[in-house]
């Protein structure tokens, strides 16, 4: 005796089998990171798509001699920077190294303008300029060579070397790497706000370097080595996602120095490019996506950004980034890409 299966039942069976097979594929594909984590990232990513657009502001600035405090002020307002009144603020420029003729570090004029804005307009309680240099253990030589020593003395702002600070072990929330905790400088963990002030550049490992890559400098070299390669071994993109997701500072902002950018073989040996722009915002991913567009790159093609966007760490899509200030199309300069190998 044969039992006939109705067409509807067959369809249901097929659908069920399809779901099971799909589930098995997803499970297999996500086994390396764990299905629960993958599902959490994917769900958050989907939820982020429905969240409000992130504001990113652009300002034209032709030279470091320009009135940069006014530009920073306008940019901060346009980007709806956080209220920092009475806050302890860590300002983190990119001082990766000093190579004569190579603009691989954030210009001190930009950091100085930000300091003046924070002190005079934002009325913060305390400003600390902090960095954990990548290639050299001696911060003083880099501070002198880059002009930061003089600027910091002029502004009477303290510098903290994050490579040698007291340490705090912070939990890593994301699970993107095999690490579940990270040593971090107490100066950063105790701050109310972190402002990433990177140089706009191309990078031979990550293709671009802006506000997110600049965060590498906040981890202590004394634990992770010089150039903190132990963390590169976790996968640069995965580790940066971890760092962005686990930042202990409740308020943050990114101000990118693109007045003179660095193109080609970044982070050190690239060539200067007069890109004439400052940009900023609270959503580091949106800021870096905009930075990529300014350099003539498509953010969706940059792995460092796409994974973070997929995991919901910020916005990447053009229609989810509300640009303010100067027009991006007028400020775009095509950067020579970093060599790939």
């Amino acid at each position: 005796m044969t039992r006939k299966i109705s067409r509807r039942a067959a369809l249901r069976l097929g659908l069920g089998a399809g779901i099971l097979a799909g589930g098995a594929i997803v499970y297999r594909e996500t086994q390396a990171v764990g299905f629960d984590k993958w599902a959490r990232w994917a769900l958050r990513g989907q939820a982020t798509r429905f969240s409000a657009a992130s504001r990113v502001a652009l300002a034209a600035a032709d030279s470091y001699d320009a009135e940069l405090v006014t530009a920073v002020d306008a940019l901060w307002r346009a980007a709806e920077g956080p209220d920092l009144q009475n806050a302890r603020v860590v300002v983190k420029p990119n001082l990766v190294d000093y190579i004569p003729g190579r603009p691989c570090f954030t210009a001190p004029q930009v950091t100085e303008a930000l300091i003046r804005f924070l002190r005079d307009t934002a009325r913060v309680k305390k400003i600390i300029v902090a960095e954990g240099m990548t290639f050299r253990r001696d911060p003083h030589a880099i501070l002198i060579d880059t002009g930061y020593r003089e600027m910091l003395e002029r502004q009477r702002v303290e510098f903290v070397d994050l490579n040698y600070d007291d340490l705090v072990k912070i939990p890593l929330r994301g699970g993107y790497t095999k690490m579940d905790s990270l040593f971090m400088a107490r100066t950063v963990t105790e701050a109310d706000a972190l402002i990433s002030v990177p140089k706009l550049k191309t990078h031979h490992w990550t293709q671009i370097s802006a506000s997110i890559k600049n965060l590498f400098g906040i981890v202590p070299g004394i634990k992770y080595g010089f150039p903190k390669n132990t963390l590169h071994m976790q996968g640069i993109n995965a580790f940066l996602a971890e760092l962005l997701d686990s930042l202990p500072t409740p308020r943050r902002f990114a101000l990118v120095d693109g007045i003179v950018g660095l193109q080609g073989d970044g982070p050190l040996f690239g060539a200067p490019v007069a890109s004439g722009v400052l940009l900023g915002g609270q959503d580091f991913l949106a800021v870096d996506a905009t930075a990529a567009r300014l350099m003539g790159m498509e953010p969706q093609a940059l792995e460092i950004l796409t994974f973070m966007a997929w995991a919901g760490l910020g916005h990447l899509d053009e229609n989810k980034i509300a640009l303010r200030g100067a027009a991006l199309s007028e400020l775009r300069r095509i950067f020579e890409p970093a060599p790939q190998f």
Partner: protein
Amino acid sequence: MLRAQNADGGWGYKRGGMSYVEPTAAVILACSQDAQNAAVVQKARAFIKTLQRADGGWGIASMDAESGWMTAWAVWALADNDMAAAQRGAEWLLATAGLRVTDATQVAGVKKVLRIDATITGWPWQPGDAAWIFPSALALLALHAAQIRQHPRVQEGLQYLLDRAIPEGGWNIGNPFMVTGNLPPTVESTALALLALRAFDIENEITQRAARWLAQENFTPTAHEWTWRALYGQKVGAPLERARGALQTLQRADGSLDGNVFTTALGVMALDL
């Protein structure tokens, strides 16, 4: 420097900062010859010993549960006083190596991008990482202090230093070249690598070129740079008046160099400031 000792017997990089193995070991090496410092040094050694981990190595501080590069500092600092602890640390060093590439295609790729022989390795900052000049040279000095001088890892470590030298002279932190550019030598890496090679009586064109580069004064005159330069100068009997004068000028009112205990200890080791 002595007044900056923490209650636990260790030193931080800054006065009052948490105790780390590196500055504590450097102070021991700087002060242990002077009998007046016996009590301070004894307390510091006790601090270092309490941090030795079951695997024989040391982390960077008490909160660090993983042995790493500061093992070399601890071995060096304990070698003339507690050889048993130093030997266990030395064994950890001998069992630890930077990543080694063996696949021929990868070796060729690394050679092209970084201009190094990736089949030769030294010591990493942390296990699982590639080798770098500073931890490698430091490990060699520590093993030398622990009387380990013929081991194959020592021989490979010395080869590693020679392979990573910059053709024009000196060492950067790791490879001599990166993608499109020659990396510049740094005073710290060059002085430490030269000290390690000299400890094992290696002198050749590479060390001579590096020593010539170090003798030039084409670096930014910070306390850190001068102390490393003076450390090497003292070892080879070079005149130290310029370094002494520069460091005395840079010395702060509290006696420190840069307010940094580690740099100050190096200054004392080099010049008995």
